[in-house]
């Protein structure tokens, strides 16, 4: 019997562990039923949701890159009403906090979405202001403090739930964005979303992806993500969900040390569908080895 506890609290939400899933990589949880153990998950962050259903991008949607992948899914989703009516009731049975990742074309849409999702079965909302794949909306909000602030305020005004802002790494100074988010009243930040990248097929001389560019994720981006978490940790005092290339407990621990209060697992779910379970197990082992009993003893403990 291990006396190590991974239980924690994030923005007022009680979590079984600080291990969450990254939006868009874990569906609605159900898809991973055979591999995940929902009692070890801190939260399921579901696929990016919009007011209306969306078809996403045409053509090829993923490409593998060295130690990473590009995606241009383009926010395909069944729309918020379907989520509320059909999916949330279904996944409630996991007894795992559900965080809904939302995306809007306008500031008002974020507000509207926040209002619709201010219901039981939703523990928090995560604002995706950085998805690089959708021409209207998305991108603009995430790289410019003013519009990001407007989005946060619109969301806050319309919900009693914690509002998590997901920061884009495609900015000159992530700390500036984080501070703006803190001042705007966000309850937490998550970072990073994907870096914008591209791949070319030299046989056809065409871009590999249907949308030309896509979002880079996976181990390749980990050094950048880790650096940004560390920068943001120094800049603000809001809780942080760290993500970007976390494949195993070692990676997760690096994020905790850098200052993440929770981590989210993304691309790793595609590589090992039981990644979250393994990370939970190995994280416990690490704490035991280090004679720590509480995951919170690790957070921000980087010695510089």
């Amino acid at each position, binding site marked *: 019997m291990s006396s190590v506890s991974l239980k924690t609290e994030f923005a007022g939400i009680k979590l079984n562990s600080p291990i969450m899933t990254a939006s868009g*990589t874990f569906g609605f949880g159900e898809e991973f039923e055979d591999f995940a153990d929902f009692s070890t998950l801190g939260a399921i962050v579901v696929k990016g949701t919009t007011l209306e259903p969306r078809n996403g991008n045409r053509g090829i949607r993923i490409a*593998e890159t060295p130690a990473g992948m590009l995606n241009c899914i383009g926010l395909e989703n069944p729309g918020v009403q379907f989520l509320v009516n059909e999916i949330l009731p279904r996944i409630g049975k996991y007894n795992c906090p559900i965080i809904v990742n939302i995306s809007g074309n306008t500031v008002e849409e974020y507000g509207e979405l926040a209002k619709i999702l201010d219901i039981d079965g939703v523990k928090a909302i995560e604002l995706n202001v950085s998805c690089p794949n959708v021409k209207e909306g998305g991108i603009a909000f995430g790289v410019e403090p003013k519009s990001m602030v407007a989005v946060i305020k619109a969301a806050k005004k319309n919900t009693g739930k914690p509002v998590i802002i997901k920061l884009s790494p495609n900015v000159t100074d992530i700390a500036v964005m984080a501070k703006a988010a803190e001042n705007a009243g966000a309850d937490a930040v998550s970072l990073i979303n994907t870096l914008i990248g591209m791949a070319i097929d030299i046989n056809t001389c065409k871009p590999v992806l249907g949308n030309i560019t896509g979002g880079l994720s996976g*181990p390749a981006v980990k050094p950048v993500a880790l650096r940004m978490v560390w920068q943001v940790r120094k800049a603000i005092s809001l809780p942080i969900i760290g993500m970007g290339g976390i494949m195993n407990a070692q990676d997760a621990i690096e994020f905790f040390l850098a200052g993440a209060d929770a981590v989210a697992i993304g691309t790793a779910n595609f*590589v090992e569908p*039981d990644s979250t379970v393994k990370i939970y197990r190995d994280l416990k082992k690490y704490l035991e080895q280090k004679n720590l009993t509480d995951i919170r003893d690790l957070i921000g403990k980087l010695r510089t």
Partner: protein
Amino acid sequence: MTLHKHFLADGVIKRHEKIGTNDVYLLDINISANTEKFAAGQFVQLQVPDGEILLRRPLSIADAAGSNLILIYRVIGKGTKRLAKTSVGQKVSIMGPLGNGFDLACKKPLLVGGGLGIAPLLLLAKRFAGKADILMGCKNAEEMDWPLPLFKNIVKNTFITTDDGSMGMRGFVSEYLPEILTAESYDKIFVCGPEIMMRSSAEVAVRHGIICEVSLEKRMACGLGACLSCTIETKCGRKKVCKDGPVFESREVFF
């Protein structure tokens, strides 16, 4: 159509050999799990060993017996090139069986395969216990070197086309198909191969009033219906090739 709970296992490579002149390999993997109920048309997500390749690769279940899985693949790019270097005894992580598989309900099936699309028809032919015919199309006689022996005793009649006429009929399967469908009263055809070949074959089938199932290919990340890499537009809305497919009734996807 049987759906099973997925497994994730470190299989052990029992056999790995080049079976075709043109970089086609057969991989026999012991997964220490009963594979008897895996449906023909289902696939696995195989992890290319040795760490360089991030994403898993989808490969059809070409055969399944006892706790062994047979996969047949062609070297296409980085992943399959590296896979070809793995040796007997090595471990390889396998996740599956994924997708729906073919619907066997029919009396007189015709299997139609092109190139590597022939692979999943092997298990399908077995499931039909000898009562199926097969029409195989390849570029040339050389490309027929691997499928011919494999199908020898598990189908009734074998029809062959090659693009260059070096074996069997000259031309595409879809050109030969009307003749075959007229000569014999098939009630269902199962097509797997390049999309253009599936489209044209499906068209012929529909013209002959015969139900046609096709097996689609799309780039996949999760293989579980979660990432939406593989979504397609169908007559009945958007579907995921990995989960709702890879097998679809042709009229649902070609319209």
